[in-house]
Every structure is written in C-alpha cells, then in structure tokens.
C-alpha cells in the first residue's frame, strides 16, 4: 500500500505583492519531495479549538527550486483562507501543507511539441510554474519550445507577474505573451481588449499549429470558451487540459 501524502509544517519565508489583490507567499518546506509544473497543494488552517479548514492552491514556482515553493493567492471577498493569508499571516508564520497533488494538469519541459497556455486572472498561477520550468529546464539549458501564453486580465494593474512575464518573453527563446484587458486599457494599448473568444484563440494558436499541448486555467466561462474553441480547431482532446475555478472557492 502507498503511504498517505503527509501534512508538513511549512514556514512563510517571504511575502510579495503581485497586484492589489494578489500576493505570493514563499513557504519553506525542508522535506519537500519535489513537484511537477502545474500541480497544487492543500493548505490547512486550524484554530485553537480544533476547527479547521482546507483549500487547494496551485504551486507557482518551478520544480527546479528546492526547499521552498511559492503560492500565489488572490484575496477572495468573504474568503476564509485567502483572507487569513492576506490579512493575518506574516513572514515566520507556519502553515500545514500537503502535496504535491494532481497528475494530469502537468507539463514537463521534455514533452515534445509546442506549448499553448491560456489563463484568466489567477488561473495563470499553475501556468507560471510551467513557464518558469521551461526557462530553467535541463539544469540551465533553456528550453526553446515554441510557447505562447494568452492571458486575460481585467485591468493592466491586475496582470499578475507582469514584469516577470515581460522579462521571460524578452529572452528571445520562443516564448510570446499575448495579453487581453477586458475592462480597461491604458492609452496606446495595442493588445486585445475583449474577453477571450473563438477568433482570439484561433489567432493566438495559429503560429503554434494544431500539434500544440494546451493548458487552460481560469474561471469556468473562460475555460469553456477556450477549450471548446480548441476542440473545434481539431486539437486532440487529451491535449486540451483544463483546470477551473468557479465563483466559489473561498
């Protein structure tokens, strides 16, 4: 029999603001067994009287980093765990963490074929683990797999990892990042300015071709539109991998 995945006690070692409502928590996990890009962890909070809650959070950091992982957490209005993390937790606090979990929504830099990522809001988190893995794969030998990220955010200031995505895309190793801003656009904006639709998916996928491996993560309506569009474009179903979060999930 397999042993259960143990609960481990992790220590918050750094906190970093990504956007006004999204923060990254670096948590030290000395005994961490390692993870694959796209996997998640369960986090458990326990009160003095034994009341406890659990939530799942995607791992943002790449597998090449050892001894710690990054969790990027959006503060959900009325959320129990995300509000605790944003309002109460500070560097030095300890959390119970269990993982890594999930074996389907994962990508290895050794996988052949182009990579197409579609994200809505904080759905970018597991995809960022893939991009960071891609950038550091094979012990420093950067992967040059043709890769495109189509990333939908409401406003420019809501774009999670914006500077890092700019840096990764500027490296000239085959990564392109295409943004769409659905609520407001800054003056001179040349990117998309509408919700993701069939035509946008077809346009952004086009240079990669129908052999791309695709990972889609975001709110359900975005995931439905993107996955159905890719299905109609003829991508094999097992290459259209989705992860969704609905209106709930506080």
């Amino acid at each position, binding site marked *: 029999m397999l042993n259960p995945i143990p609960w481990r006690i992790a220590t918050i070692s750094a906190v970093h603001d990504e956007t006004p409502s999204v923060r990254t928590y670096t948590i030290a996990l000395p005994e961490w067994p390692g993870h694959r890009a796209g996997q998640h962890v369960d986090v458990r909070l326990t009160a003095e009287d034994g009341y*406890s*809650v659990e939530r799942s959070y995607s791992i943002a950091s790449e597998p090449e980093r050892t001894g710690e992982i990054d969790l990027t957490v959006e503060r959900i209005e009325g959320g129990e765990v995300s509000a*605790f993390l944003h309002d109460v937790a500070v560097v030095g606090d300890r959390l119970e963490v269990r993982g890594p979990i999930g074996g389907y929504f994962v990508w290895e830099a050794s996988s052949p074929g182009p990579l197409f990522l579609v994200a809505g809001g904080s759905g970018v988190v597991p995809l960022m683990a893939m991009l960071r893995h891609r950038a550091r794969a094979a012990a420093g030998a950067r992967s040059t797999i043709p890769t495109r990220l189509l990333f939908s955010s409401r406003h420019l200031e809501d774009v999670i990892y914006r500077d890092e995505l700019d840096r990764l895309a500027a490296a000239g190793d085959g990564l392109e990042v295409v943004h769409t801003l659905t609520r407001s656009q800054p003056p001179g904006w040349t990117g998309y300015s509408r919700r993701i639709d069939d035509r946008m998916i077809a346009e952004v996928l086009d240079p990669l071709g129908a052999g791309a491996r695709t990972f889609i993560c975001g709110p359900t309506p975005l995931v439905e539109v993107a996955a159905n569009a890719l299905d109609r474009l003829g991508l094999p179903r097992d290459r259209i991998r989705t992860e969704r979060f609905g209106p709930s999930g506080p």
Partner: protein
Amino acid sequence: MTDRFVTRGFVGRRSDPTSPPGVDSGRSPADRTPPGQYLTRDFPILSAGPTPRTPLDRWSFYLEGLVREPVTWTWDAFTALPAKDWTVDISCVTKWTKLDMRWRGVSIDTLLEAVELDPMAAFAIAHCDGGYTTNLPIGDLVDGQAFVAWEYDGRPLEAEHGGPARLVVPARYFWKSAKWIRGIRFVDRDVPGFWESLGYHNRGDQWLEERYSGD
C-alpha cells in the same frame, strides 16, 4: 503523537449556510459537512478537458461486460425508465460540499433489472463521452446508492455539469459521479479509472477523507 498543530491567529469564519426551506434532514449543515470540506451554495464546475456535446438522437446508454445479454437504451427509452427524484448532499475532492442537491434520474437498481449479472462481476467501470472512466465496486452502486441523472434542479442537466446524463454516487467524492456517462462495463477485477490512475484515491469515501492514493 505530537500535539495538534494550531495556526497562529486563525479563528475561522464558521458562518455555515443554512439548509433551504422545506428540507429538514434533522442534522445541522455542519454535521452534514465531511472533514476538510466547506459548504457552498454554488455548483462549481470542474473537468479535465473540453465539454463533450452528444446530440440526443445519437446518444445511447449500455450495460455490458459480465452480463448475460448486454443492453442498450436510446435516449427516449432511457428517460422513459421509472425515474425518481433524489435530494442528496454532494462533496467534491476540491473541498466544496453542496447540500440538498435535487436531481431526477433512474436508479442503478432499476437499470440492473434489465440484465443478469455474471456471478463473477464485482466492479463497475463507468464509460463516458470524452474518454473519462471511473471505477466502483458494484456494492457501492446498488440498494439506492447511485443513479443516472438527466435533470438537475428541475431542468435538463447542462453539458458543463455532465449532461445529457451523469452518474451520481452521493456517498463518494464527486469525481466518481461520472459526467457524460454513456455506459457501465461490469468486470471481475478492479481497474483504476482516470483520476484513480492519477493520484486520487481508489474508493473516495468523503467521510473517511479518502482524497488521494494512500489516504
């Protein structure tokens, strides 16, 4: 044993939603929430890939494998089977629990009246549009424990939620309630399904918190 871990500064919200009016199970919402779960009023959607859409005139449902004579129903024949209304609590391994979900569909017991199971048959593998599978001991499906639903909350089951028809097994995490089900194959040996092969628990009893392999 070490002392229980306490998260510094965590108090908890504990504002459980109440049950809808007219439904009184005699147990509080908190008592009906399995360990590690939280209550939601939404009906979240989770699937691993695109949503299949099979036209009803091409839809059929089969029972096959270790049965004397396999049987197939068309959509019209299937939905003409004796149906029941079911009000059940559902728990998803992603941590949400939704109480008093109202479905309409046909009991697995009713379906099994149409076939004669081979005495060797011990496990059921649900097969679905899109290639999804999940495995259950036959004992987890019979005696009113499971049904195939085509209505949710008085309306046809939406494709995103597994329509036109999905298996519902309330006593197990919701991944066992296979969306887009098209048939059940009866076998003598257990065969892990899609999520059961990818790190999730083979049985998935939410009251025992059987989330992941080894739990």
